[in-house]
């Protein structure tokens, strides 16, 4: 039974219990349900976390922004082609401190999802992000990026306008920034489309979010030629926050309430804000050069390899 089935099952149970008249029995049964939740809902497999990361009720980036900075002002357009609705960018203050916030926004209904292109950005979205990051650099404003995307959009228009080049330029520009950059993955972090906003001083992840090179379905169909094996793929890919923290790819995990972020949105928002500010206060002490060095040094050490150094022998003539 995966987490969604458990969730549905619990809901049905609760409805049935509420229909019962006897108060004492209701109370007793409710207690049992709570106990069941406490024991069963914390046993999450990687695939459960994938399902939670894609949960239709999961809070979206805009909700986090509205909670954290009530005075958020959205800035539109990449000044080159158009405005991509799947990336939200703007400025706002968190507890009185100004931030530039760039976020990938999924929709909560089909209509909104169509408008937001299921949070799959086009090149103009990344160019808008780039513009806002350079603006933040000019005004020495710290940057928060919120990542929630299945990946960059693979389409004709996106390729015509240079999807790869847009992402590459973002990475190059983010490497050169001298302001604090904090990234937080709130749902899906899919491949290059997520990394284009994820090259940060500190990367945080919500407990039930995922960050991977491609979707488990894609992984299963490419490597195992069988897209139905996505459950096993999710397990094998090591895409959960806990795995990535072990690999030192991310810097921190933000705890979610029991059963996922959608069960208690306020708490999730509060924890996220606290974690972000916590990291920001640490980064604020560093100078621009130190921030630049820290960010680049961090990615320089990413990789899993061994080396026997032959270079001191002067290389090899072919």
């Amino acid at each position: 039974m995966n987490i969604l089935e458990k969730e549905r099952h619990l809901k049905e149970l609760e409805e049935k219990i509420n229909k019962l008249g006897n108060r004492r029995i209701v109370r007793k049964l409710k207690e049992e349900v709570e106990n069941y939740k406490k024991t069963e809902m914390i046993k999450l497999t990687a695939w459960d976390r994938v399902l939670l990361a894609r949960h239709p009720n999961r809070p979206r980036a805009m909700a986090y922004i509205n909670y954290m900075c009530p005075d958020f002002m959205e800035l539109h357009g990449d000044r080159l082609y158009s405005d991509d609705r799947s990336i939200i960018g703007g400025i706002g203050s968190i507890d009185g401190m100004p931030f530039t916030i760039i976020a990938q926004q999924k929709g909560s209904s089909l209509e909104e999802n169509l408008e937001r292109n299921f949070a799959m950005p086009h090149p103009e979205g990344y160019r808008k992000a780039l513009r806002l990051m350079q603006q933040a650099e000019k005004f020495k404003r710290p940057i928060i990026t919120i990542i929630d995307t299945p990946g960059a959009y693979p389409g004709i228009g996106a390729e015509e306008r240079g999807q790869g080049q847009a992402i590459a330029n973002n990475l190059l520009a983010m490497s050169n920034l001298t302001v604090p950059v904090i990234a937080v993955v709130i749902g899906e972090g899919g491949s290059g489309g997520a990394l284009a906003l994820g090259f940060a001083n500190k990367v945080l992840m919500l407990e039930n979010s995922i960050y991977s090179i491609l979707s488990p379905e894609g992984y299963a169909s490419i490597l195992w030629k069988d897209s139905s094996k996505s459950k096993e793929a999710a397990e094998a890919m090591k895409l959960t926050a806990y795995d990535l923290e072990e690999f030192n790819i991310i810097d921190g995990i933000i705890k979610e309430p029991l059963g996922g972020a959608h069960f208690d949105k306020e708490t999730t928002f509060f924890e996220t804000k606290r974690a972000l500010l916590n990291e920001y206060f640490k980064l604020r002490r560093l100078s621009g050069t130190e921030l630049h060095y820290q960010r680049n040094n961090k990615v320089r050490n990413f990789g899993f390899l061994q080396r026997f150094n032959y270079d001191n022998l002067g290389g090899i003539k072919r």
Partner: protein
Amino acid sequence: MNNISKALQNRKKVKEKIKILYDEGSYIKAQKADVPKGLYEKCPKCNNSINKKTNIENDYICKHCGNHFRMRAIDRIKYIIDDDTFVEKGIGYITLNPLFQDGYEEKIASYKKKTSLDEAYIYGYGKISGEPCVIGVMDSYFLMGSMGSVVGEKVAKTFEYAIYKKLPVVIFTASGGARMQEGIFSLMQMAKTSAAVAKHSNMGLLYVSVLTHPTTGGVTASFATLGDIILAEPNALIGFAGPRVIKQTINQDLPEGFQKSEFLLEKGFLDQVVHRKELKPTLGKILSLHRGDRR
């Protein structure tokens, strides 16, 4: 035995090892073994059969339609770099299996044997038409030239070596993208290589990237498209998402010539499309125009 003599002995052993690893003969043998049997092969573009021997002499260009075949990294270096000037750097990396994928180590070992390379990328010092530079070449015959931890590390090292020597960098890309088997580590190589390019660029040094067939995925979205000058070979597939993925997503046939280098030139993402025979003089010209002592 003291430490110094121990070290010296080790050094001797290593040198012998290198000789075995990088024996010229073993490479030629590997090449012969990899090419499918038979004297003729079919050109994928014009369907004419061509003699393999003349094809190799013709720098892997179809004599009927001018289609550029894929080229091995070592052939590429022999073709582009002046004779006896190439010194390979960054040897001795060992690819590990971070996600404990079944069969990944065996796969790597078999590709190592087939191509006599230790990874899908080699780099080193060399001269192009007398101009010194650091050259890096990806080999699409090694697991589709995919970028894993080792390739990313070597690309980053390429730029660091060039910064140390104050030299321009020329990179030939040919890759299917990030390596799936290494998961998130491959993805992070995109950031790593881009950061290396930024560092090199901030030193005021030149980076020329030459895109060859095929350059897709994570490589396109990182160092391949960050060159100061971006060249491409004719009719090369260059793009972020592969054509199959796009076709699946939009449920439509793709227009002809989509994601080919001529298409990208038209859309303004390339500086030039250069025929393989003109590649060496073009690179020589670019490098000589950027030579430091002229400034």
